[in-house]
């Protein structure tokens, strides 16, 4: 078997004079769940897009990535003219595509929406369809770019549980971009902070799941990460 560790070395990305990623290095263990935090504009999406192959990597960068890769964006990005199941298997070939789509949709709790038009889905349902579209490819690398940012709080809680369940079941190396510290600590085993074009903080989360905000360790991690993001809290506990 090949080594499925994700390795990035010396990744630099510039837009004009704006250096967004500055010889960044990164290593993710196979099957790990990592969250990537960072201020708005710190280059999180740029990094993710490079990992997804949507942006070209510069020649001097070393990228060693598990494949196949699947992405879920902040917006579901479903094709409105394709039924839900066709969206799930878009770009795939072979037989029994509908069955594969159905299995994936059932996993995200949308087994009854196979033939629905995307325009009829709620925000949460659309995002779950996007998850099914990622999962059906059985990715070794799952990249999530603020996938829950546009959802309401209750839906987000349900989506957290769903993502964890899917991750446990399929074990892809998962990297989720978020600007929500709580979400990062709630989901990931490792939280990275992107700042100045590099990984500025690397925090391991050793809390057992399910995690609770009330846990004192949670609060400590939270404060630590916020401080890495440049936010100092004077909390009256």
């Amino acid at each position, binding site marked *: 078997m090949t080594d499925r560790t994700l390795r990035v070395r010396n990744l630099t990305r510039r837009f004009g004079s704006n250096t967004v990623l500055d010889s960044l290095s990164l290593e993710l263990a196979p099957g790990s769940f990592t969250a990537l935090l960072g201020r708005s504009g710190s280059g999180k999406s740029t990094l993710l897009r490079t990992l997804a192959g949507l942006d070209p990597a510069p020649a001097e960068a070393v990228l060693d990535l598990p494949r196949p890769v699947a992405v879920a*964006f902040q917006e579901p*990005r479903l*094709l409105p003219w*394709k039924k839900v199941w066709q969206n799930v298997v878009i770009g795939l070939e072979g037989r029994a595509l509908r069955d594969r789509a159905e299995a994936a949709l059932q996993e995200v709790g949308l087994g009854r929406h196979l033939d629905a*038009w995307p325009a009829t889905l709620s925000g949460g349902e659309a995002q779950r369809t996007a998850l099914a*579209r990622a999962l059906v490819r059985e990715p070794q690398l799952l990249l999530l770019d603020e996938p829950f940012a546009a959802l309401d709080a209750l839906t987000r809680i349900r989506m957290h549980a769903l993502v964890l369940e899917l991750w446990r079941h399929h074990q892809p190396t998962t990297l989720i971009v978020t600007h929500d510290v709580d979400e990062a600590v709630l989901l990931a085993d490792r939280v990275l902070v992107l700042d100045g074009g590099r990984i500025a903080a690397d925090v391991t989360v050793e809390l057992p799941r399910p995690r609770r905000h009330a846990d004192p360790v949670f609060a400590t991690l939270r404060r630590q990460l916020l401080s890495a993001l440049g936010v100092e809290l004077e909390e009256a506990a």
Partner: protein
Amino acid sequence: MSETHAATAPRDLILAQRRRLSWPRVITSLAVPAQLRRFLSPLALVLLWQAASMAGLISPRTLAAPSTVLASAWELTLSGELPSHLLVSLGRVGAGLAIGLSAGVVLALVAGLSRRGEEVVDAPMQMLRTLPFLALVPLFILWFGIGETPKIALVALGATFPVYLTLFSGIRGVEPKLVEAGQVFGLDRRGLVRHVVLPAALPSALVGLRYALGSAWLSLVIAEQINANAGIGFLINDAREFLRTDIIVVGLLVYALLGLGADALVRLVERRALAWRPSLIKG
């Protein structure tokens, strides 16, 4: 006590309001079903026209009475004259549309899907479209004579531009995020065009198709004024010679019905092809 009073007062008010609002609705809905109501005033106009004709206020040389028009339409249909002219006109529109739509679609694909194609195709198309194409009639007669060719060419030209413009802008207006999603999920260039770009451009292209049909009818009317010896336009011109306003009106009605039919056809296509649109999803 004052509490119960306060609670009932608003309800009385609402009931009173509802009663006041619903009165006019009751009257109109009793008389005619909603869909038919919009045809009432056109019908009244036709009746007025008939009455004026019968009273001798409108001379038949100015405008024949509706009853005469209907009788002539019936006669022309029975004699086979109207169907044969109609067939000729439909043939011209059909041939012209087939050429014009194909040309518009091909040019839009070439310009829309490649930079080089845009450089070659778009600039001349944008220049040509500013030309009122009906002004080309004299040139067309010089080039193509007075047979069927200039008529079909004019219809084709009228149909090309709307389809080209709308399909081209539809292709260029496709949401880049959807293209990106297609890419990341494994669509190659052909797959992107087929599954993302063209479906995204379809609503706009169908609007173009509707314009193209309208433009094709207009071209047909103009083209059939050019020395035709068959077709609805010929029927109208011929009737003019004999001051038969009834036949002229029959010809105009046929043009109108054809236009309406074409529009209904596009609507039907839209309802089928754009079933995914939120505005068309009902229940």
